[in-house]
């Protein structure tokens, strides 16, 4: 199998069909990232658009990070754009007002142990949806995609110190929202 760099060179030298190899290789990762960032309803469209953005931006890939880290960067930025657009649309709508006041019970028992709060994917998705986009992105990239601190720093264009602090804040916020929802 060709390396990512070789595939990119092949595409840029006039063989767009070689991009299919990239899509095959990364479709699951990109779709999963979109799913956890923008939710199930828009995940597939977002993933397709992200791949098109990746294709359009291939000439900007300089190889300073691994191709997968760069791909995560393009995809997460695309998801952040979608979330920003969605926020603008929601702010004035009735849905936004209802959503702000809405709360949900995570379990039938309000005396459950802390670990019970994170028992299923729906709960985690529910909490993620209530987090600010930047915090959501770093948490998803770390916990679902398993990026290291160095990769997070490259994918989000922030320093290592900021990665540590933002990740810590994101986790605290995640737990706070989870507790509030109980």
């Amino acid at each position, binding site marked *: 199998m060709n390396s990512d760099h070789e595939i990119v060179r092949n595409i840029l030298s006039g063989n*767009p*069909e070689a*991009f*299919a190899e990239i*899509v*095959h290789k990364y*479709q*699951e990762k990109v*779709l*999963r990232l979109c*799913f*956890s960032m923008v939710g199930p309803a828009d*995940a*597939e469209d977002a*993933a*397709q658009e992200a*791949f*098109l953005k990746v*294709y*359009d931006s291939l000439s900007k890939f300089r190889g300073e990070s691994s191709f997968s880290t760069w791909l995560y960067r393009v995809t997460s930025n695309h998801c952040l754009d979608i979330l920003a657009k969605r926020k603008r649309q929601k702010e004035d709508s009735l849905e936004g007002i209802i959503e702000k006041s809405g709360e949900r019970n995570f379990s039938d028992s309000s005396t459950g142990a*802390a*670990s019970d*709060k*994170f*028992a*299923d*994917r729906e*709960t*985690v998705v529910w909490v993620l949806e209530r987090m600010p986009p930047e915090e959501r992105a770093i948490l998803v990239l*770390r*916990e*679902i995609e*398993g990026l*290291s*601190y160095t990769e997070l720093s490259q994918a989000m264009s922030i320093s290592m110190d900021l990665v*540590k*602090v933002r*990740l*810590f804040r994101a*986790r605290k916020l*995640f*737990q706070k929202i989870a507790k509030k929802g109980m």
Partner: protein
Amino acid sequence: MDHESIKLKIYEFIDGELTPEEAGQAAKHLETCADCREEADSWKSAKAVFQSGFAVTPASDFSDRVMMKIRERENAAAKGWPSYISELFALPYWELMAAAASFFIVFSYFFVDQVREIGGNGESSIDFVYRSQESSLAQMALGGIDNEEAEGVPYE
């Protein structure tokens, strides 16, 4: 080191991002601090859901659909659309609106400027017409011009 800073290190410990020496200190702290231990256990359970609960399977034709869109773009580019036009229509809606608004403002400025030139002395063509009519009416009132002349009928 305050407790929040220690907690930050505990998360780094869970992530496996500490040096062996720092990891030893973090493990030692966890043995003695119930608060940090509870938080670490809670986060480990969340981590398990993150890692196992987000398996997604792309549709079987997912990559075909992506490639179809790419082929459509490549074909459109090959048909001779200049690349800058394709790029313009690929812009987000608000950017297109901003470009259109800028064009309208610049166009309006030059259009108004041209209209003003017609009247001369900085007055618009509309001002010029009104001034002419007012002048004619004043002459009529003073008897210096008859109705026929005012209506544009020439002298015989």
